[in-house]
């Protein structure tokens, strides 16, 4: 009853013009206006009951690590990029993928990193210095028993090398083999204790609690990876809560590429973020997205009819659009590869995060330009 009253009140507050308009429309004979009828309005500032937790990635000397600065993601109280009067407290972060071995990559990416592909430290340095990466995701692909089966100690050494080469916060990725990943995460977590790494990833199909224990013991952050399913994501977070504080969990519900199911990714992220803001405790975590997956879509790398070429532009644009679409759904941490895509996405983030009062009207007169 109380709600109903309030709502009615709001109708009157919001829509005087709409009501007036309805009345006028009902009149049979119309008097044409001779000047503009003022119909100003104020959109409401929307407040949600829930808030995303803030997660700190990386640690400075003062914080127990060696990073130049740490990065905080999350903390949103409203939908991302919906209302500049109610902005997200922290900008989304762009992290570049670096692999610990030479892997097959599309030519469009390879041409930018060919000379460093066998030196992860140099590769990471290039991503930070040249491409503008704010973080590095070191993918320890070589630990896969089906690849080089690199032992945990050696993998941890690579992590140390990369930590020395760059001063941005670091994420460390496994190979997807649940047993080997855990063994490596244990070693890496111990060696990099205090660095507040983002351990990528802790999944339901591994010893989740074992991984969480390790992450907790050495003060890192878990990237909780689930399938594209809201309940699976909830369940995983619930499992992690028994060990990890919420401030040490970032969630990832898998990213499909533009053209290969991006709509599922987009809508799931949007649903998760809305549910979280509406108060769903188990989903109130910053979200991560692997926009690098864009390169799985054939249209990103395949040679096509001349009309759609060159692919060296089409491919990175594919990654850009995949990343931008996840950003619009509310992603806080996006993993990328191509330097042009990274630059565009960072540029868009910067422009959408600007803190300023509304600029005066500025006409963009595209009608009369001669291109």
């Amino acid at each position: 009853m109380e709600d109903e009253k309030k709502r009615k009140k709001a109708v009157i507050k919001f829509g005087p013009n709409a009501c007036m308009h309805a009345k006028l429309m009902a009149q049979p004979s119309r008097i044409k206006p001779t000047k503009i009828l003022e119909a100003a309005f104020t959109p409401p500032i929307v407040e949600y009951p829930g808030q995303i937790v803030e997660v700190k990635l990386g640690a400075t000397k003062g914080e127990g690590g060696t990073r130049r600065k740490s990065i905080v993601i999350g903390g949103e109280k409203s939908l991302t990029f919906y209302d500049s009067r109610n902005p997200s407290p922290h900008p989304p972060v762009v992290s570049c993928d670096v692999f610990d071995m030479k892997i097959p990559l599309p030519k469009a990416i390879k041409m930018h990193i060919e000379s460093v592909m066998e030196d992860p430290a140099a590769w990471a340095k290039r991503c930070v210095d040249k491409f503008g990466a704010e973080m590095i995701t070191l993918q320890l692909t070589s630990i896969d028993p089906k690849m080089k089966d690199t032992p945990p100690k050696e993998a941890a050494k690579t992590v140390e090398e990369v930590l020395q080469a760059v001063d941005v916060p670091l994420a460390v990725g496994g190979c997807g083999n649940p047993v080997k990943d855990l063994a490596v995460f244990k070693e890496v977590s111990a060696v990099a204790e205090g660095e507040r790494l983002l351990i990528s990833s802790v999944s339901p199909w591994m010893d989740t609690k074992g991984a969480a224990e390790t992450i907790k013991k050495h003060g890192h952050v878990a990237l909780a990876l689930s399938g594209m399913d809201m309940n699976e994501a909830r369940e995983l977070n619930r499992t992690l809560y028994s060990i990890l504080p919420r401030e040490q969990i970032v969630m990832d519900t898998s990213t499909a590429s533009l053209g290969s199911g991006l709509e599922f990714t987009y809508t799931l992220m949007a649903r998760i973020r809305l549910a979280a803001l509406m108060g769903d405790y188990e989903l109130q975590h910053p979200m991560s997205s692997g926009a690098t997956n864009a390169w799985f879509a054939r249209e990103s790398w395949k040679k096509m009819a001349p009309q759609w070429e060159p692919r060296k532009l089409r491919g990175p644009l594919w990654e850009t659009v995949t990343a931008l679409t996840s950003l619009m759904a509310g992603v806080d941490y996006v993993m990328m590869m191509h330097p042009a895509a990274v630059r565009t996405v960072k540029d868009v983030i910067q422009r959408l995060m600007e803190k300023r009062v509304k600029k005066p009207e500025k006409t963009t007169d595209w009608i009369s330009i001669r291109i």
Partner: protein
Amino acid sequence: MKRRMRRNGKREIPSPLDLYKLLPRTNCKECGERNCIAFAAKLVNKDASIEECPPLLEKEYEEAKNKLWKLLKPPVKEVTIGTGNSAVKIGGEFVMHRHELAYINPTAIAIDVTDELPHGELLKRVKEVKDCTYTYLDQELKLDLIAVRSTSNDRARFKRAVEKVAENTVLPLVLCSFNPSVLKAGLTSISREKPLIYAATKDNWKDIAELALMYKCPLAVSAPNDLNLLRSITQTLIEYGVEDLVLDPGTDPNDGFLDTVNNFTTLRWMACREGDELLGFPLIGAPIAVWVNLERAPDVSKWCEASIASILVTRYADLLIMHTIDGWAMLPTMILRQNLYSDPRKPTGVEPGLRIFGEPDENSPVMFTTNFTLTYFTVSADIQSSDISNRCYLLVVDTQGVGVQSAAARASAAKGGLTADMIARAIKESGVEEKVKHRTLIIPGMAANLRYKIEDLTGWKVLVGPSSSAEIPDFIREHWYKERKS
């Protein structure tokens, strides 16, 4: 002013019960449904319209019908540009987020030409627009309109250009100028084809409104980065008698991009959540505005234009005006709008079972994939892309419409997981064992983790195939025909 978010805010999608109360409730079945509540459920999902209930058309239900119509009316008005088969509908949207129902009319894309283009170039460009089509899954993606800009500001020139374009395309047009007499010159010959008039502004609105009324064409309203002015002009035009409006809050690709995204989002919010009828019209975005800055290299402008277009597709633009027509830049936007405007309520799976490609024999390869629509169409297109692979058996395993990678990662069959059990059963049920002599199954690279379990359960030998189905032809050449022979 602050609003606490509670459920869907002010304007909510009606429930079947809300509608049921207004229906005759006689369960007469004339609509083809079992009863009135079933019909109400269909109304809510936009699977039926109120005209399908004959009793409602009778006088005694007139009031109820009007109430229903009001409840079911989209908060964003649907506006039609053009006539006949290639007419384009924009707007007609109900929701902010596609999971709340579905987005209805995909963002239309208009490509520009100018009235100063030499004859040959103009025709070439019109043809390029027509030829920009791409087959994606089982759909033909294409561009929707041509926007004729008057850069000359000359009546005769504009008229000639508009006529020339109209003669050479079936696509609807957008006529772009702020000069009423130029627009009028363009409208005289093609007004019957219902082009969109772009645009009424705070300075010219009266003359333009007269044109829209005289020629009965939809009209765009432009008020760059000033939503109050936009709403005021809209109100004025409605009072003037113009009904089909399209709103342009301005697209600033540079310093004002934050405002642009903000304006689009606010407009759709006001329509869908606050029920503001003055702002409940389709929205125009103009990624073409990146070309105002001519200092950039053309490829950079195209890249920026495509990036901005993709953001505006996610942020409620119902019509985009673009300059780029290069395939590499257009394709991501075309696919993105297909993706986001696909109906999330539709099942994502195709019929499981055995598919036969070409004329395979007893030595032909046997492969499997999951029944996720996207996966299935992609894999089958790749198999058909080469003679070497277009002779095989493909088992489509029922993962309840989940793709290979996510299905293989799930341990149980309960929620679309893929298990060796299911594959064993699919082999048995398909009868493929009678069709081939060999016992070798090629599995998707993404499902490599199931390899040994499948071998144990079926007695078949497993060959782990590529992770991308695009490599299937090469894989079959290398690993099926070459290796197995040697």
